[in-house]
């Protein structure tokens, strides 16, 4: 792929990632989100956070399976969108669900396991977003950067748990995400084990 083609691809992807948000905002304005639009908004943003997280996690295996090296260069964009949607999801909880009642929010984080793990995923995303620049990558050094960014596996597990513990009874959706996550992490584990203990970790990120 030529640099120009890649730039076009990346710009297209950048815009595409905004479509879910635009859709929700349009729904709010046009009043097409049903009887409880705020719930649809908060949940929609949560759904898309999780989806972007899984899409980000799919980049490495896809590249390995397809051999398309440039896929890796889209990973940062997708990871940052994950963080962006997580922030919006959190903001909609803080504003539209709790109306900035910080005492109540603190209590929720401590008392409700599903909120605790959701919050843990958000906290873990912070250092990953902060170290996503080239300069930070250099400063940390590739090896340490890679180790730090393995936190994304924990984020994935917490995020699925967050959804699983939230639903009232019908676990179809969180179970579906859990299967996808297990596949994405399982492939890494398989490759890591196969490449032998001596080379442990290389190519795992």
């Amino acid at each position, binding site marked *: 792929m030529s640099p120009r083609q890649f730039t076009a691809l990346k710009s297209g992807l950048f815009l595409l990632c905004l479509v879910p948000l635009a859709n929700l905002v349009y729904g709010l304005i046009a009043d097409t989100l*049903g009887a*409880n639009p705020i719930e649809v908004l908060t949940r929609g943003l949560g759904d898309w956070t999780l989806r972007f997280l899984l899409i980000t996690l799919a980049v490495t295996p896809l590249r390995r399976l397809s051999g398309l090296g440039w896929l890796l260069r889209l990973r940062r964009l997708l990871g940052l969108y994950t963080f962006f949607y997580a922030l919006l999801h959190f903001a909609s909880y803080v504003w539209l669900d709790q109306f900035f009642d910080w005492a109540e929010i603190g*209590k929720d984080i401590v008392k409700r*396991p599903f909120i605790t793990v959701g919050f843990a995923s958000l906290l873990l995303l912070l250092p990953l977003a902060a170290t996503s620049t080239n300069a930070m990558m250099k400063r940390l050094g590739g090896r340490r950067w890679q180790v730090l960014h393995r936190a994304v596996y924990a984020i994935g597990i917490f995020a699925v748990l967050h959804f699983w*513990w939230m639903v009232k009874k019908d676990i*179809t959706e969180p179970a579906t995400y859990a299967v996808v996550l297990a596949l994405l992490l399982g492939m890494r584990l398989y490759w890591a084990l196969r490449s032998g203990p001596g080379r442990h970790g290389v190519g795992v990120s």
Partner: protein
Amino acid sequence: MLIQRLTDILSSEITAPEIYRGRREFMRAAGTLALAGGLGLQVADAAAGVKLAGTRPGPYGTSEELTPYKDVTTYNNFYEFGTDKADPAVNAGSLNPRPWTVRVDGLVNRPGQYDIDALLKLASLEDRIYRMRCVEGWSMVVPWVGYPLNELIRRVEPLGSAKYVEFTTLNDRARMPGLRSPVLDWPYTEGLRLDEARHPLTLLAVGLYGETLPNQNGAPVRIVVPWKYGFKSAKSIVRIRFVEHRPISSWERAAPREYGFYSNVNPEVDHPRWSQSRERRIGEFRKRKTLMFNGYGEQVARMYTNLDMRRYY
């Protein structure tokens, strides 16, 4: 007691403008019915509800703004038609609420099968505007049509040994696609203590907004217990059984730590996974404080003076 009844009726008359506002919706519905009649449609075929004639304002009204008809009929928890709250409005067309019979049995002197048309004529129909609080943290104000469940209960003459009442929802896969998924232990059952079931607030509802119940709201007949979380109000019931021992209801069986038998609306006792102190009234932006017994404490609190509400949530 008598004096209290009188003030209740009086206060509902003060809320007449609210009822009036609802009536304008009724007129719209009446128009639909006239059209349906003109086309020679049968009651069972009419997609929209059919106007219920001769209802009178009932007690315990609230002057709060009614939740719009559209929201009341498109945002429903009725797992027999799917677990998403938009599902029932889409899937409940297959319910076919007529013909319909309700079996009333168990510890009573006069058990029987009640045809829906007989039930509709059993007592005079009242308009009852109630708050409805879902265990999930949202609420509505719904103008129901029905009469106190006790009208039926006293006719069947419960025996002294009857302490509880169990309600069973229809369990027919051909008419309820959601039953194919084992999310709950079907059929859906719910229960009340006999005194709760006989309380004048407890309604045998056959309509809302002046029309017969839409399928997704529990056609053709359901229970409404306004001081308890919504799932206690069983929909599309086919059986009312009087029993001696406390029945275990579907949600209680599914998650006993989360959904107790009583499930009285209580802002001080949280659901294990979320707070119950506030609620989002459908149509409002800010959340509002949840009221003890959903605001019906004056009528019902005395039934629970000896009950530890933390233990018996």
